[in-house]
């Protein structure tokens, strides 16, 4: 039973990261190949506070969010000055620097990482794997809600405008600089929070769990599912996260598979599986339209009474 809970928690954490990455990459159109660094930062801050200073799980969570927020504000401010491919390089570099700092800075515990992170408890009850799975799912729901809410606001509309044409967005009054920074900060705060949950869940953090390849894995999930959509981010994470579990032989070729998927998606289906205008979505939409039209032609009255609205 524990096995399923562990897999659920892992996949759900990936989904949270993928949905949070979508705010920067999908909505705002900024390249970001360093999400794992912020995930790791949150995990390390939580682990160090819990193990070294005996801070409780419930106080580590806001601390990790705050760290992710501050780091995201800095990255967002830097992003304003950089052309898009230079920004991509900067975010790639972030991964390597984050690892170097995790390994070399004494506060972060060196190359052995930090271990024996105590289990969190709520009202005297220690967390079980099931509790972690539920907590992760709750966090995913909150993340999706925030992401969907953002998409429905003026803020979200402005982000998409920035993605399409920064100059045009600015000319209609969108505060481009502030909104870009806010998108980065929101995304990385969520990643920091997910990191804190991950640290307590694993009870150990090591530098190499948060490397460049993890950032690429998260991006591959988002790209496979469909950049710009929440459903794509979640489905992509579910597919790529569960695949090594469902097909044991893949776990030995994990990065090979993910790298190949990334290349194939970019080459042949850049919208991803479930992105807007992807083959699957178009086919579904066509099927639904066909279904509707046949029903409508069978009952012509319904057309008049309700209208196509």
């Amino acid at each position, binding site marked *: 039973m524990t096995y399923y809970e562990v897999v659920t928690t892992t996949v759900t954490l990936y989904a949270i990261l993928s949905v949070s990455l979508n705010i920067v990459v999908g909505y705002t159109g900024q390249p970001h190949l360093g999400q794992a660094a912020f995930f790791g930062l949150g995990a390390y801050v939580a682990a160090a506070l819990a193990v070294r200073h005996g801070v409780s799980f419930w106080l580590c969570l806001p601390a990790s969010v705050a760290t992710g927020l501050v780091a995201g504000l800095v990255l967002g401010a830097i992003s304003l000055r950089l052309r898009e491919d230079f920004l*991509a*390089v900067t975010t790639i570099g972030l991964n390597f620097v984050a690892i170097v700092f995790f390994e070399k800075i004494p506060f972060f515990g060196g190359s052995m990482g930090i271990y024996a992170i105590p289990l969190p408890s709520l009202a005297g009850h220690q967390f079980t794997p099931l509790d972690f799975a539920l907590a992760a799912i709750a966090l995913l729901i909150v993340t999706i809600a925030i992401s969907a809410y953002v998409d429905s606001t003026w803020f979200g509309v402005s982000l998409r405008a920035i993605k399409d044409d920064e100059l045009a967005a600015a000319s209609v009054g969108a505060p481009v600089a502030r909104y870009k920074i806010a998108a980065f900060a929101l995304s990385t705060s969520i990643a920091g929070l997910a990191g804190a949950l991950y640290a307590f869940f694993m009870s150990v953090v090591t530098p190499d769990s948060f490397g460049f390849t993890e950032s690429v894995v998260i991006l591959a999930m988002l790209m496979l599912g469909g950049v710009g959509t929440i459903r794509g981010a979640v489905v992509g994470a579910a597919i790529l996260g569960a695949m090594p579990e469902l097909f044991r032989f893949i776990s030995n070729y994990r990065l*090979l598979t993910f790298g190949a998927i990334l290349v194939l998606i970019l080459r042949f289906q850049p919208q991803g599986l479930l992105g807007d205008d992807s083959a699957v979505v178009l086919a579904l939409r066509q099927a639904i339209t066909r279904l509707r039209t046949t029903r409508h032609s069978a009952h012509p009255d319904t057309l008049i009474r309700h209208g196509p609205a």
Partner: protein
Amino acid sequence: MFVSSLIEGIVIGSLYALMALGSSLVYGLLRILDIANVAGLVLAAYVGQDVFSGTHSLPLALLAGIGSASTLGFLLQRLLYRSLLGRSPIVPLIASVGVFIAFEELFRLIFGPYELNFPASVGLPSFHLGGNLVTGVELLIVLVGCTVLVATWAFIRFTRVGLTWRAVAQDRETSAAMGIRTSLVMGVVFVIGYGLAAVAGVLLAINYNSITPTMGDIPAYKVLAIIVLGGLGSPLGTIAASMLIGLSETFVAAYWGFVLPRDSIAFILLIVVLLLRPQGLIPGEPVRA
């Protein structure tokens, strides 16, 4: 300490310049940040080591390495990059990242996860310079680095083929209209770019006597940093950025090593320079379309 840091910095800077030159050429021509070039570097190190352990001939090993990496480069541009040319520059970069991590896994599966040695002797003597030992390999790295960089610069600057490269870099469509075979130019630049990475890979492996599947990680990020720092893919900018990073790393490691981890310095330089001069250190040749 100053002289030894200076020597080490120049050696490392030359190595970085060699590693970055291939990607830098590709970037100059097509504005593609090609991290998969470093996969070519690691491939050449593995193939070179394999041939060397069979034949004990360094030239053969080098040739085999260059051949394998150039083939990879040619195939990648033919099968992948060419179809991504019209898209935003992020797309080929992410695709090359996918190629890079896939190859890292392939190296692990084919050559094993453990460290391989490359105990080749380069036939150059070690000598002392100001009380510091300079090994034959280090001397070779500096010599090869200088030769290759000057040769590449002169080739682009003075030959007719180099002229077609610059033309294609400026405007692909107009060049094609003028009768330049742009697809041939692209193929040649990838073959040469990956060949240069192969030379760097073999030298890197001999210098540290070590090859691992993930040996490309840190070089990949530094190569990207060097291209961006150096400006728009000009060989001179590449040299300047490589030397800047090589020297800063050794000097910071020697004097303030306890504060800043060595491999973070390239990144900090990258951020600082980009914030002060977003166009790079030496904007150089007008290679942007």
